[in-house]
């Protein structure tokens, strides 16, 4: 039982890793700084730790999906990220792919009767 739990946890980790970019892009239509995004996602019950999110934001910026800007007028300097034009396009397409994938996968599960196998 312990082993099963471990395997499930590992697979969940992979699933989450696959969806994290989509989750992040979805929240960046308006500029946000890293930690605000962490909290934002947490509120919506998508937990991402800052240590994963910050490097990811940089990577997405390097790929041209995000723009960043340092905001130094406030009490402490913060780096704000926002979707770029390319980022918006990518996000739109990803959303479409995502819903297709969910639909197909659900169909597979329903066909296989996998949901209620004991």
């Amino acid at each position, binding site marked *: 039982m312990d082993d099963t739990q471990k395997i499930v946890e590992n697979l969940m980790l992979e699933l989450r890793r696959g969806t994290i970019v989509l989750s992040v892009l979805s929240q960046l239509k308006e500029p946000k*700084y*890293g*930690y605000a995004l962490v909290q934002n996602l947490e509120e919506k019950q998508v937990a991402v*730790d*800052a*240590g*994963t999110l*910050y*490097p990811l934001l*940089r*990577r997405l910026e390097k790929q041209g999906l995000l723009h960043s800007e*340092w905001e130094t007028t406030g009490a*402490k*300097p*913060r*780096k704000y990220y926002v979707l770029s034009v390319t980022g918006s396009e990518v996000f739109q397409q990803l959303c479409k792919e995502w819903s297709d994938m969910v639909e197909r996968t659900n169909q597979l599960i329903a066909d296989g009767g996998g949901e209620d196998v004991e």
Partner: protein
Amino acid sequence: MLNSKDKNYVKEMTDRYVFEVTKRLPATQKSDIDMELRSLIEDMTSQFEGMEPEAALDAVLHELGKPADLADKYRENRRYLIGPAFYELYLLVLKIVVASVAIGLTAALSIAYIVSAEADPVGFGINLIATVLQALLQAVAWVTVIFAIVERCDGKKEKGTEESWKLSELPPIPGNKTIIKAWEPLVGIVFLVLVILLFNTAPQLIAVFYSDGGQYISIPVFDTTVVKERLLLINLSLSAALLKEAFHLLERRYTIRLAIATTICNVVGIGLLLYVFSHPAIWNPELGQNEILAIVPFLDMLKQFFAGVLVVVFLADTGTAWYRALAK
């Protein structure tokens, strides 16, 4: 150890943590990530309302995790020495090199020991193991370093394993005549490495051995001073042969391009050898003067026809490569 009662604790610990992360990052990103991390740590700490700032900081840093791990996440580039694109080739080369060095060195040292007429088998054994182990470590290290450099230089390209390929490029299954078994070039490589070792470290061991009442006597085949003079050319020639074997190992079947490569390697390798052995004084004069040796007449003949032998070897090897490449 910094005490949490210390009034500079929060600042000092933050500095230490940020430094531990950023020191592992490329210079271009350092200052930016430094700023970003400090701002993040402050933001996260402020979430722990009502907690002592020191304890809150501890919790935050624990949550962020080991500095090295965090730095790894920032440093998106590979965290491996030799990636999947080169891994198989690396293993193959490593096996060849390890086998060559182990067999070659053991053989060379054993011959040297027999010739030296020293009777200290234990000392010889210990020396042999120590030398071979040391050489193996060096060999493994060098192969690894070279591959690591190649891996880094190749980094500009995207991961090289996903090269596009065409179905039409799938080669037909080779017939029995065109297939090259891996052991054939491997034997060649091991032999060539042994010869290279011999020429470079102890050319006097390339000798005719005979027993004279229980004692081994050796007469070097070559004049060692002339060998040393032309060592560079000998090495080039043997390297050409080594290259040829390497091509065989990579191609694993007789093809037109392998035949072309074989021809070029043979022209270079055997051409150089012909030049090296055209030196009149390269043969050890003692060899011809020894009456005990029954094979002397044979060796004399070999000397005379050496160039001819080389040409025959050249023709046979090159011819085989072409014949088998063109055979269906």
